[in-house]
């Protein structure tokens, strides 16, 4: 933020209303000198309290919406005349904060702080309190607006530490505030219109990007903030046009320096990130991505400007442009897949209407069972992991509440699908609610998956971005993180919060010299780091495989997620299926016993049950489609379906392929097995095998196809990985090996009908 101050242009002295009578328009101080608004179109219909010093223009149309014809869709506009004001995409406006804002009397014209009158006389603005003074009311009175900064007597006195008695307004005339004052005292919003459209019900809506005043930022008002400085945010919302009050004018420093009149002029130089409380120069952002956009807008405005002396024409032209513009706004010319986190144009994907199959689909019990068994659907509770979750939350709480959490590091291991990540996330959710309730100190939580990083070093970038919101290269990020964690240098306001770092798939961070892991695990040992690392991986002995200096830092506290046993799996499945009558009880037990025996992976168990439900569903739907036996299918998932699902999941399909492959392939495989039996060697060469095949064929009355054909057959088997083989170019020297146990081949080929003699050799 240090660089902010010196980039600021020195504020130029602005007079409240210069050139007293040369230009009739300038007599209204609320009219800033931007060309478009040079033709004021406010009606007094709604805002009766507004009083305009200028008479209403003679030849004005009644306020109306520009698109006359009723359309059934949302129609996007570039410009609308709403409620007397003309609003255009890209305009800055005041927006009501409260519903009753309209009723409050608002002074449009600035009053003199001394005599409490407005009037035509030249006023000067104090650069400190932004109050206006008539030149003649000042003591001593001024002849003309002085160049450079000017501070009123009250402020000067206040600076010197004196008690200041501001003149009180005369009775019956209360001090009314202008929009500007209300904005700066956060009674109004300011926003920039990004798009305008008409809803189906005829109301006008717009999407606005908010501005904030410095007091509303996390940092608060800084000494270098100008009085009229506001920040553009990256936050936007859809609001109704009703709540828009009138134009204001937010300018960049260059324009601001030139603009020397009008009360509703603001300076905006930075964009404020409401999530990260960080500031970014607008010039940089706009230079980056909205170049063409901004350009075209400006061009358009300039054209208008040159035309503005012939009002009739403008009027006409505007009408015509409006009609043209009554088409949906043009697509954003930005690449959709770049700019992390801000993907452009994704809102276009939405459906025009919800498809019929979604709308009028009534779920059967089976379908409901299928959807609850989905891996994606989060269960309401996590059964069977209470002990581990308690341990995790005790660990985290201990680490957070401890003032100096030295060397806090937890290593969680267990086979896939045992709920490691899910448990940690559940604990974090519980803690989050405790933070909200105020019972423990706030912390920040960063979740990283090793497999989702492009390279191990990228983890620094991700951590730094999560902590500060800035995106830098990994080397710089490492440097900054080192400064923060090792040297205790803070780079933000809320940095004294403890930070919990969850690294999933930790083993992916192991580099050749293991520096990434070392760095990350070294930070928690530093005195003021307040970093807690939770690592998750599959292997139990990962710390032991690493360098001793790493394992000593990581291996102290460990938590093992053992595979689920069948009871737990059964509980997990039935807790999900509670209230749905789709499964036989034994079927669930069978599935969970089977999975528990193989891997204890809950995902597998759920998938098997879902698959079994699918098989049942498929069978039933097929039965219904054949009208003969419409009602016969029973809607319960039974043992047979679970068995089928297990078969499909765990059994390699090679036996089926061997059973159905061509005759020559069968002979080939038999010869391989025979060769294996004969020599006892797993590996053979094509030449030897061809000899065996030749012998088998001649002694059993089959035609020997020739070596080259046989080679082709072998290569095809190799492609399916039924056998392992070298490339066919090696011909007779090609090495061959069975990829499956010879018993499998024997089992598959023994009962072959077309070649009964194969059994002799198996």
């Amino acid at each position, binding site marked *: 933020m240090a660089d902010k101050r010196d980039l600021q242009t020195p504020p130029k002295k602005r007079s409240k209303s210069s050139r007293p009578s040369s230009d009739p328009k300038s007599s209204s101080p609320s009219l800033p000198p931007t060309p478009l608004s040079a033709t004021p179109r406010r009606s007094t219909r709604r805002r009766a309290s507004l009083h305009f010093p200028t008479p209403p223009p003679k030849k004005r149309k009644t306020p109306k919406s520009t698109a006359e014809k009723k359309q059934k869709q949302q129609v996007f506009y570039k410009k609308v005349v709403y409620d007397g004001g003309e609003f255009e995409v890209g305009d800055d406006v005041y927006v009501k904060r409260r519903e009753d804002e309209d009723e409050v009397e608002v002074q449009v014209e600035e009053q003199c702080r001394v005599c409490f009158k407005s009037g035509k006389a030249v006023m000067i603005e104090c650069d400190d309190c932004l109050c206006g003074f008539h030149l003649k009311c000042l003591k001593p009175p001024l002849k003309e607006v002085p160049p450079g900064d000017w501070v009123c007597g009250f402020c000067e006195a206040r600076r010197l530490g004196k008690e200041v008695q501001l003149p009180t307004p005369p009775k019956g005339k209360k001090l009314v505030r202008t929009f500007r004052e209300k904005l700066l005292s956060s009674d109004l919003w300011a926003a920039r219109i990004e798009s305008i459209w008409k809803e189906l019900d005829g109301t006008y809506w717009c999407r606005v990007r908010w501005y904030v005043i410095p007091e509303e930022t996390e940092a608060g008002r800084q000494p270098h903030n100008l009085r009229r400085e506001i920040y553009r945010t990256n936050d936007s919302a859809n609001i109704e046009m009703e709540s828009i009050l009138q134009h204001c004018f937010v300018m960049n420093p260059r324009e601001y320096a030139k603009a020397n009149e009008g009360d509703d002029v603001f300076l905006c130089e930075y964009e404020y990130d409401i999530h990260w409380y960080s500031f970014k120069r607008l010039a940089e952002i706009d230079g980056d991505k909205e170049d063409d956009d901004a350009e075209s807008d400006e061009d358009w405005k300039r054209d208008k400007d040159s035309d503005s002396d012939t009002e009739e024409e403008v009027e006409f032209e505007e009408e015509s442009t409006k009609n043209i513009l009554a088409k949906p706004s043009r697509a954003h010319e930005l690449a959709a897949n770049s700019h*992390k986190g801000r993907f452009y144009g994704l809102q276009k994907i*939405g459906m025009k209407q919800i498809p019929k199959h979604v709308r009028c689909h009534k779920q059967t019990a089976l379908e409901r069972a299928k959807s609850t068994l989905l891996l*994606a659907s989060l269960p309401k509770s996590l059964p069977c992991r209470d002990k581990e979750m308690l341990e995790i939350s005790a660990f985290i709480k201990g680490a957070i509440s401890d003032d100096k959490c030295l060397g806090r590091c937890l290593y969680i291991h267990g086979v896939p699908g045992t709920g490691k990540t899910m448990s940690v996330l559940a604990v974090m959710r519980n803690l989050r609610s405790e933070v909200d309730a105020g019972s423990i100190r706030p912390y920040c939580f960063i979740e990283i998956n090793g497999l989702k990083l492009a390279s191990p070093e*990228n983890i620094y970038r991700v951590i730094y971005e999560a902590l500060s919101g800035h995106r830098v290269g990994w080397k710089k990020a490492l440097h900054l993180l080192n400064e923060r964690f090792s040297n205790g240098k803070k780079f933000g306001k809320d940095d004294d919060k403890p930070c919990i770092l969850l690294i999933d798939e930790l083993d992916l961070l192991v580099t050749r010299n293991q520096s990434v892991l070392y760095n990350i695990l070294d930070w928690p040992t530093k005195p003021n780091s307040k970093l807690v690392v939770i690592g998750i991986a599959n292997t139990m002995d990962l710390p032991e495989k690493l360098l001793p200096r790493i394992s000593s830092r990581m291996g102290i506290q460990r938590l093992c997620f053992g595979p689920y046993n069948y009871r737990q799996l059964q509980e997990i499945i039935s807790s999900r299926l509670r209230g749905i009558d789709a499964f036989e009880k034994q079927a669930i037990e069978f599935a969970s016993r089977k999975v528990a025996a193989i891997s204890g992976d809950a995902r597998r168990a759920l998938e098997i049950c879902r698959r079994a439900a699918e098989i049942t569903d498929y069978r039933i739907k097929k039965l219904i489609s054949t009208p003969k036996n419409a009602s016969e299918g029973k809607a319960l998932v039974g043992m047979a379906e679970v068995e089928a699902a297990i078969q499909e999941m765990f059994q390699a399909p090679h036996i089926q392929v061997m059973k159905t492959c061509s*005759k020559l392939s069968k002979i080939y495989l038999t010869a391989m097995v025979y060769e294996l039996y004969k020599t006892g060697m797993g590996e053979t060469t094509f030449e030897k095998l061809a000899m065996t095949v030749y012998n088998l064929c001649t002694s059993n009355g089959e035609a020997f196809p020739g070596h080259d054909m046989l080679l082709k057959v072998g290569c095809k088997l190799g492609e399916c990985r039924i056998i392992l083989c070298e490339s066919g170019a090696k011909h007779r020297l090609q090495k061959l090996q069975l990829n499956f146990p010879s018993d499998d081949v024997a089992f598959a080929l023994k009962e072959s009908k077309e070649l009964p003699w194969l059994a002799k050799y198996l």
Partner: protein
Amino acid sequence: MGGENPAEKALILLRTRLCDPNFIFRPLCESSDSNYSKLKFLVSSSVTEGCNNSILLLGPRGSGKIAVLDLVIGDLLQEYPDSITVIRLSGLLHSDENCALKEISRQLCTEHQLLFSKMASFDENSQFLVAMLRECGLAHKTIIFVLDEFDLFALGKQRLLYNLLDALQSVTSQAVVIGVSCRLDADQLLEKRVISRFSNRKLLFLPPSKEDIQRLLEYILLLPTDSSLPTDYVVEFNAKLQNILADEKFKEIINTYLNFDSTVKDFLRYLFRAVSNMDLQSGMLSLENFKTALSNIQRHPKMESIKDCSILELYLLVCMKRLEVKEQNSYNFTAVMKEYKCVHDSFQTSDYYAKNVCLRAFEHLLQRGLIEFMDNRGQNQSVEYRPVKLLISFQQLHQGLKSYRSCPAILQKIMDREK
């Protein structure tokens, strides 16, 4: 001009049929046991119920995995026109995860008319993918990822598969991942944490049975009676074809072919060959066509290249064989030359060539692929000293010599003696 002759028209029709996988696989898909209906059920249920699935299609090359998948996707696109996006990746092209993610983003962008940036990084693309999945899920649109040559995606860290499958673990996403592979053990290649996220539906594509082949033959080869072809021609053609199909000899030919290779695609290639042999004069298919096609398609490249060898080259091959029989496994041109001289001396052969002529012959053998250098080392060494090995088995060599028209008797004799 070709339109005048009904035979030519018929030929064009048959060829179009053979080249159109949609036409071929349609009748194989009808029964409820077929992979088509199973796959269609799986995919369409994830479209309608908004869930995620991952499916593996396994089977030998040419068994119609992609063809059936295309049929299913085509049908579903018609059924649910706006709600399906198909992303196709091939392991041969996109096994690198960076490039795969980029390709996914590109296809997603073109599908949804978004602007695509080539410069986006891995992170950006993977976040874009997640955002798209969520956005599509909310809009009830299903994304179908087709990963051809699935086994090649399983090389390395399997980052793409992990990212893809992990993205499917959220409720909002609605996607189907279909892996297509000819490796039967494709799922065992996956890492544990990847396979744990994979939902492991497997469909096995097997070669068609004998009855299916018979039906397929009739379905493809019989001409339609309601086409622009003259009716009497069609009737005659079909009658003749029915005769052929019923012929035992024909069945034998077909069986010979199927014994060798029984996948659909190879069978179609064979039929194409046979149909192309059709005599345009008579306009009828004959048994002869199928017979020649069989010999055309079952080739023996090594035997053929022996047929083209010169006598000297045969001598060299036999010498090498003799060396191998003597259990001298590593030999180079000089050793072969020595052997050649030895043979010449002991058998007093009539033709003896100088060393440089022999070297030419030797190089020719190398080019024909009948012999090969043992290793890639010593590439700067001259050809004469690099060890070589024989790439043709003794039996084949023997057979080749026998069928060689003007093979010197002495060569045969040497060969026989060694046997």
